[in-house]
């Protein structure tokens, strides 16, 4: 599916507004949209809302063999999924330019910055290490996916707990969370990416571009930084020439934003911790905004099952009503066996009833009803002989010939010719 094209009028207006230091959603130049961080029921699951942009990160772990070059280090694996949920332009399972760019940036931001102690993830040197996998799913794309992903990924890593292990000689025991409390990862620092978009060849600069601003911008600068003001990665794209002063200014803005966001993440982590300690419910279900009219929730509800057993029994009883004759196979000619009702070749026979296994009392009733309808409808109608080669005369219920007489009108079933043999119609 294609993205809606951006009209010339939108482009002109956005640029004109930026010149006047105005943004579409009323923000100032250096403002972030509202950030909301919430955690899932699992450890290592984090949701981030950045305005309308939404992402989810989930951390998981697995025991694997280490890389030969680094036998004492655990492995970090990052995967950003551009799910088609987020934007109609994203396709499933296709590596687009954007997804490569985002994945690469996240790796540089979180793996190459050595913010996680990978040596502590080693279980048996050269044989078993933990592989930490971070999946980031885009849920809604309203611009600046990178910043949202980096916040979600680092918050999820901080929230994650891996199972405890014990090594006795050759044997490695992994304890379930019930046996031993799972262990958090050791994280040295928290790099967070901050995006700057440039307009008019770098004359104007905006923090946290939204989707429409992203489509108009000339260039993008992403700076990953931690709260100690250490730059972990810096990337400029879009082919824009930046001056040294511009980069310096951006890094100064980034340091302010990063300390704010770090604060927010720590607060969210604390809240989650206290909620978990108090034994309260946590997770996505709890973060549903109850006050909105688009949301509704109901408490646990019992299901009335008073007559369920009787109903089931009666259905089965009725279903078994047709005599369960044990059919003995008939061998009409050597090499051919026949089992089943009638035991005749029904080709060329003009009527046939298909007995369905579960045809119960209900079905019989339906058929009779239909018969009556049929009669009503065809009253006065000329009995039409169909012009297909085979006559489509169907007699319903051979057991009740007096009724069948009345219905012996040809009834057409539109569509596939195979329907001729079915007497059961959808009501």
């Amino acid at each position: 599916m294609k993205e809606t094209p951006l009209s010339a009028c939108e482009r002109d207006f956005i640029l004109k507004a930026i010149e006047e230091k105005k943004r579409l959603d009323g923000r100032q130049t250096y403002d972030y949209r509202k950030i909301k961080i919430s955690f899932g029921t699992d450890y290592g699951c984090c949701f981030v809302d950045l305005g309308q942009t939404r992402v989810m990160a989930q951390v998981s772990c697995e025991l694997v063999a280490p890389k030969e070059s680094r036998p004492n280090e655990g492995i970090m694996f990052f995967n950003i999924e551009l799910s088609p949920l987020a934007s109609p332009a994203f396709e499933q399972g296709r590596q687009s330019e954007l997804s490569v760019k985002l994945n690469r940036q996240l790796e540089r931001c979180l793996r190459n910055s050595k913010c996680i102690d990978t040596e502590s993830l080693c279980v048996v040197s050269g044989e078993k290490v933990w592989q930490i996998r971070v999946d980031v799913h885009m849920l809604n794309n309203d611009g600046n996916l990178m910043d949202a992903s980096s916040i979600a990924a680092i918050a999820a890593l901080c929230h994650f707990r891996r199972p405890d292990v014990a090594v006795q000689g050759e044997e490695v025991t992994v304890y379930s969370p019930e046996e031993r409390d799972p262990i958090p990862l050791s994280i040295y620092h928290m790099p967070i990416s901050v995006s700057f978009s440039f307009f008019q060849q770098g004359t104007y600069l905006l923090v946290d571009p939204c989707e429409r601003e992203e489509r108009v911008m000339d260039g993008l600068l992403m700076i990953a930084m931690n709260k100690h003001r250490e730059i972990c990665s810096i990337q400029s794209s879009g082919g824009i020439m930046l001056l040294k002063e511009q980069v310096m200014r951006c890094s100064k803005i980034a340091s302010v934003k990063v300390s704010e966001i770090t604060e927010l993440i720590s607060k969210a982590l604390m809240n989650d911790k206290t909620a978990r300690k108090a034994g309260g419910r946590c997770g996505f279900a709890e973060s549903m905004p109850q006050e909105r009219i688009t949301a509704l929730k109901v408490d646990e509800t019992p299901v009335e099952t008073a007559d369920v057993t009787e109903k089931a029994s009666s259905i089965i009883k009725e279903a078994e009503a047709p005599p369960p004759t044990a059919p003995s196979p008939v061998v009409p000619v050597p090499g051919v066996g026949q089992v089943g009702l009638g035991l005749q070749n029904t080709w060329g026979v003009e009527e046939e009833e298909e007995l369905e296994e579960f045809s119960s009392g209900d079905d019989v009733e339906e058929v009779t009803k239909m018969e009556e309808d049929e009669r009503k409808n065809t009253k006065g109608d000329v009995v039409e002989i169909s012009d297909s080669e085979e006559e489509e005369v169907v007699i319903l219920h051979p057991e009740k010939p007096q009724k069948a007489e009345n219905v012996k009108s040809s009834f057409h079933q539109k569509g596939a010719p195979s329907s001729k043999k079915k007497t059961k119609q959808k009501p």
Partner: protein
Amino acid sequence: MSTTGGMFAVLKEKVGQVLVPGDEFCFGAEETISLSESAKPERAVCGPGLRRSGDRLVVMKSGVLRHKPPLTFWIDSQQKRYVATKGETVIGIVTARAGDTFRVDFGGSELASLSYLAFEGATKRNRPNVQVGDLVFAQFLIANKDMEPELVCIDGSGRANGMGAFGAGGLLIKVSLGLVRRLLAPNSDIRLDLEQLFPCELVVGMNGRVWVRASSVQQTLIVANLLQSCDTMTTQQRQQLFRRVQQGAL
């Protein structure tokens, strides 16, 4: 009329209520149209969201049942995706020129075609000045599920009648189709509230696109943001917000 009154009475009772897909209205057994009776039954008009299936009227969208005398019924639903309907006016974005036609995106399932000649005063020699990326306000000449939709920027007598290319200096926003219908309704209360704020120009397409232009960028942005938030507010909430804006912005 007694034969069909039964069902319509039930329908009218439900007007203003919320219905969901699968809800049915059925002619009773005695209400089936008998051939012997010569009088023609009243005819109901099923609008969007309603469908006739045999002798039943079936709801196929969730929303509020609306009624307009004598017997027009439809479901008023909030949705985002537009489905082209003949005669409706929409805002389209020109995406390409192909031979003698423009290809226009209107937010539906395929692009519509718009002929060079379907503009007021256009001839083979005198082609309209429309570029890729421009906005056009146009009407559907052909719109049905089996054919490629076709737009025109002239009415039956060849006049522009407000249609054509436009868009300089304004902002295009996307709102829900329900809001667009409320804006276009005669004596729309949202429109009346807006008029009291400050003068602005609006072009409203049935496809959920609204183009806004006010005297300044700031005012255009205010109107755009107000409109986008109207969907989730009651009348009172909206009037309160508008009042606040009026006090703050002026």
